[in-house]
């Protein structure tokens, strides 16, 4: 999206032209961040490297280990699915990536998040703001509540373009109109002065996408972007995210509880359970050779066209475990039909399987395991 990218910038001042004037750079990582804001090239081996991330929430019953020692990587332009039941930590993982975990009660307690070569956990809050909206766009689950009801659509889209790209009010509004038509809203220019309540749910999610993409980010975090929408609208929104991310080379982390959606959208999938990644791999590998009974459960719970009419939709029995004091056992073992004693006394590591990049956390499917 480079059409208006150069409008309204001060060309003679390459140093800080994109920095909002109130941001003080205080850290070394901040210096690095400023230099990478200048262009859209990759600056590291991977766009994102998450290492041993743990995010806890303080509740009246104790510390909830919502995200527990999670590591994964993301290539430039790649689409990754984070899949799991509600409460498995996938949304908190996404919020952690932009340091938007509500604090209190939440807190990132350990780990590293390297975005484009920068350790974002070392940035100050102010420096972090340079990244949010500019390099990382966020689409939230509920478009009905995620837009400010008292501000116009145009203002809300133009807002981040104004602060991050240094656009004037008018130039930012032009860009907003362009984005709005890009996300498929007819008569975009006329609708800039409309308010969110004048849009349907699907349209609002399109607006959210426009906001997230306003500054042409390198990473788009889409947290259950279609859960609150009608099925027909869901497909349209997903297709929009897919086509726009392809067009602009934006990497996407798609958070969903629906393995079917992830399969259609993603290159790779991380299956999360109880705050941990339990299986990761290419979409095809996971669908063809799932290596973790939990993933089988998820696959089984998909409605299938080839099934007999009237067959019951399968669900995974039982509840996820208490994340306040996770025990030493495999966290899925209480719900697992294949669990043996070893599963109940120690937790398996995320270990490689046959295909490249396919890892799973299960004793039973490890080489020599008892599950075939």
């Amino acid at each position, binding site marked *: 999206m480079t059409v208006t990218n150069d409008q309204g910038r001060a060309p003679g001042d390459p140093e800080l032209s994109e920095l909002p004037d109130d941001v003080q750079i205080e850290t070394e990582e901040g210096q690095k961040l400023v230099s990478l804001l200048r262009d859209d090239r990759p600056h590291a081996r991977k766009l994102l490297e998450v290492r041993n991330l743990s995010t806890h929430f303080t509740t009246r019953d104790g510390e909830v280990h919502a995200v527990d020692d999670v590591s994964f990587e993301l290539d430039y332009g790649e689409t990754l699915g984070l899949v799991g039941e509600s409460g498995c930590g996938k949304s908190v993982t996404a919020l952690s990536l932009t340091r938007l975990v509500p604090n209190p009660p939440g807190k990132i307690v350990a780990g590293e998040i390297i975005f484009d070569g920068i350790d974002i956990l070392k940035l100050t809050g102010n420096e972090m*703001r340079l990244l949010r909206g500019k390099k990382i766009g966020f689409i*939230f689950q509920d478009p009905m509540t995620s837009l400010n*009801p008292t501000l116009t659509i145009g203002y809300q889209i133009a807002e*981040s373009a104004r*602060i991050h790209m240094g656009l004037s009010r008018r130039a930012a509004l032009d860009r907003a109109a362009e984005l709005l038509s890009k996300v498929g809203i007819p008569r975009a220019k006329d609708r800039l002065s409309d308010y969110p*309540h004048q849009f349907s749910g699907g349209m609002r999610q399109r607006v959210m996408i426009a906001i997230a993409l306003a500054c042409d980010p390198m990473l788009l975090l889409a947290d259950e972007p279609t859960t609150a929408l009608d099925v027909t609208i869901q497909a349209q929104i997903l297709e929009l995210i897919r086509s726009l991310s392809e067009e602009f080379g934006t990497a996407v982390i798609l958070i969903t509880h629906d393995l079917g959606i992830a399969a259609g959208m993603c290159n790779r999938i991380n299956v999360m359970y109880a705050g941990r990644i339990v299986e990761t791999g290419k979409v095809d590998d996971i669908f063809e050779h799932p290596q973790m009974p939990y993933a089988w459960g998820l696959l089984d719970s998909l409605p299938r066209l080839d099934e007999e009419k009237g067959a019951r939709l399968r669900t995974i029995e039982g509840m996820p475990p208490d994340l306040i004091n996770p025990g030493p056992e495999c966290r899925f073992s209480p719900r697992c039909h294949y669990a043996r004693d070893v599963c109940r006394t120690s937790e398996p590591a995320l270990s490689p399987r046959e295909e490249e990049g396919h890892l799973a956390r299960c004793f039973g499917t490890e080489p020599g395991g008892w599950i075939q």
Partner: protein
Amino acid sequence: MLGYIIRRVLWIIPVLFFVSVITFVLMRATPSGPFDSFGGGRIAAPGVVAALEAKYGLNDPPHVQYLRWVGNLLQGDLGPSYKYRDRTVNDIVGEGIGTTVMLGLMAFTVAVLIGIPLGVIAALRHNGIPDYLATFVSIIGIATPSFVLAILLLVFFSVTLGWFPSQSARWWDNPSTWVLPTVALAGFPIAQIARYTRASMLEVTRKDYVRTAQSKGLRERTIVSIHMIRNALIPVVTILGPILAFLITGSFIVETIFGVPGIGRYYIVSIGQRDYGVIMAMTMLFAVAIAVLNLVVDVLYAYIDPRIRYS
């Protein structure tokens, strides 16, 4: 929108009709009349009472009296005062209304200018020192009835310290005369507005759109001023109308204690004296004030909340 305003204004007419009828009936329900006693407790001779009552038409059937009152009202005549017989009700109201409205508006301005920032700061520093301070101020405001606050202010600032005069006889000559009445009147609404604003801000803090704003990389100040305060003020606006109405119609106690020459202080006296004209006029004025202020608030509400569209 215009149509809505016109309909609301028209609706004020039947409201006023019912208010006037109820007031009229209640006034006449009392066994005694305005001339049963004169000042100093002297009982008037029956002949004199009858003559006076005949003069003012008080022997006519009630509905005739009511219609006469309405007729006069439509010509802008609020009728005679039975107590202050050298003045008409128009005189009495005309002299004091400006002062009462002014006092109410000043207290209102003070309440809004202190209450809203207090609530906002308390919410932003939730559980911090500013929050406790704001809560403390609110508690004082809620716990201190205006008559108590008025007495305490009077004793402390004008009697003990001598900073302000205690009697505001020459109301406009000296600004210091209206400081204490304004503060006494504003105490409770400051607390109310601050509490409401704080609760509303805390509610807004948890909204999804605030997180959206954060995800755009906006600075804290922008998020608070653009995304939070406006939304937080929407529910606050709904209580501003009743508060202003309360300040204008409820100022009679403060007026009495400080000797403010407004109209409020006539009210209690008039009811005791059965000074029908003053009672009717005052009730109607206050009812109009309440109705108009509520209309203003509703219009203002639509202005700050784009979701509200009246049709």
